[in-house]
């Protein structure tokens, strides 16, 4: 079999060649006891780039996402993030408070289950406004106006601003979670199956919104999904995971149109037949 990793992983490039990258991941590994969560993952990501992660269930996608986004300390390897003012920082070596601040201001994290990413006991508007307040915005009128604008942006009726999310549908919750994350204009967003469980038209609208943000605001994203159609539409690049390791990576169209690894070929073939 030809080596799928023939292309030089960006993460092996010297720092000098990555002045404008945003994220740099090297040899990232996480073990759950003796079980492998994810193993030896490396890549770099630039503003305006979307990295897709696909693989069978249990292949380590969510573990990887949690290690990348600072929620889980890896067993080995590094995640470097280029901060706005202090250059490259290893996020897992930052003091807890600094990391939390980054997570609230520079990053967005969209959970697979929107209930994990929202506060169900406060209004939709408060869910969106919370991150603004945490980021230091104090003017109540402005917070409210921004929250309202973002509801419109994710196509939720603005009249629902003061409603509790517990009365929203699954698709609305997911869009609310996305609005909550985008309101602080993060530079990097991590998404775990963001369109899972949404019906097709809502999904299309969401993808539309994300594509626009990526193109117009230079948002970078890492998106875990099992849906190759979503990957095709949204991700510039793709990593295929199996048993914790990346078995193939490249531009999305390379991996999907000219898959090399037996597992990737199987994945692509099953979609075309289904």
């Amino acid at each position, binding site marked *: 079999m030809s080596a799928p990793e023939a*292309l030089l992983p*960006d993460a092996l490039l010297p720092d000098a060649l990555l002045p404008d990258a945003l994220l740099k991941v090297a040899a990232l590994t996480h073990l759950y006891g003796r079980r492998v969560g994810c193993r030896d993952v490396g890549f770099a990501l630039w503003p305006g780039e979307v990295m897709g992660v696909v693989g069978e269930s249990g292949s380590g996608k969510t573990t990887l996402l949690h290690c990348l986004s600072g929620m889980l300390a890896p067993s080995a390897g590094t995640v470097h993030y280029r901060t706005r003012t202090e250059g490259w920082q290893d996020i897992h070596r930052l003091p807890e408070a600094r990391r939390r601040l980054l997570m609230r201001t520079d990053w967005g994290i969209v959970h697979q289950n929107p209930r994990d990413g929202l506060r169900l006991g406060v209004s939709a508007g408060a869910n969106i406004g919370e991150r603004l307040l945490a980021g230091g915005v104090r003017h109540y009128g402005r917070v409210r106006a921004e929250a309202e604008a973002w509801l419109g942006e994710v196509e939720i009726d603005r009249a629902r601003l003061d409603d509790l999310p517990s009365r929203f549908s699954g698709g609305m919750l997911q869009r609310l979670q996305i609005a909550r994350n985008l309101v602080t204009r993060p530079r990097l967003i991590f998404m775990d199956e963001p369109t899972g469980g949404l019906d097709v038209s809502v999904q299309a609208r969401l993808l*539309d919104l994300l594509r626009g943000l990526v*193109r117009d605001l230079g948002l970078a994203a890492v998106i875990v999904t099992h849906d190759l159609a979503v990957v095709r539409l949204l991700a510039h690049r793709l990593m295929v995971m199996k048993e914790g390791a990346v078995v193939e990576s490249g*531009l999305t169209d*390379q991996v999907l*149109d*000219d898959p090399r690894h037996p597992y990737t070929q199987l994945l692509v073939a099953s979609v075309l037949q289904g």
Partner: protein
Amino acid sequence: MPAMIEVAGLTKSFTLHGQGGVRIPVFAGLGLSVAAGECLALDGPSGSGKSTLLRSLYANYRPDAGAIRVRHGDGVVDMMTAPPHQILAVRRATIGYVSQFLRVIPRVPALAVVAEPLRVLGVELAVAERRAARLLARLRIPERLWTLAPATFSGGEQQRINLARGFIAGSPILLLDEPTASLDHANRLTVIELICAAKQAGTAVVGIFHDREVRDAVADRVFDMSRARDAA
């Protein structure tokens, strides 16, 4: 004249793991070079690897060996070894690729589909859409279709959307896979004009043209696939 594309020792095969690991060799040791303002037509029977070569030039397919050196800005990038981030940059700024079939994006209207390559280069919305409108009009897409998503368009309409999208950014390199296959005579003539104008502006073109009239009108040289095919 400096070469825009220089290919050397290019070898491509497919290995189908799901089917007993059967290996399909397509070409081996392929070499070619295309200058600015020149159009090279790929020639060979069905299955001889023309589309595979074109896709390889775009780094859509990943050949097994060889070099694909492309002039990008002031430098040269080897599409075989460039990291993904750099290939994306080359595609944005240097290479336009018109596939045989349009890949439709749900909900995105024709005008935006065509304007997109300019938008990712940072061109202002109004400017990009004005240019898109001009190309759509030139390719005889009725104005009432511009605001609709092309999913429901006819084959020929979709191909013209794809062509407009491929030509809009004035890329220094254009790759065309049977760009006139489902077009009527008037539109074929328009495509010939577009290709000739691009060449005049210095664009290097590599194309697959089954249509004799189109090929004779645009191609400066013909590249015969058979030698590299037999070597595979």
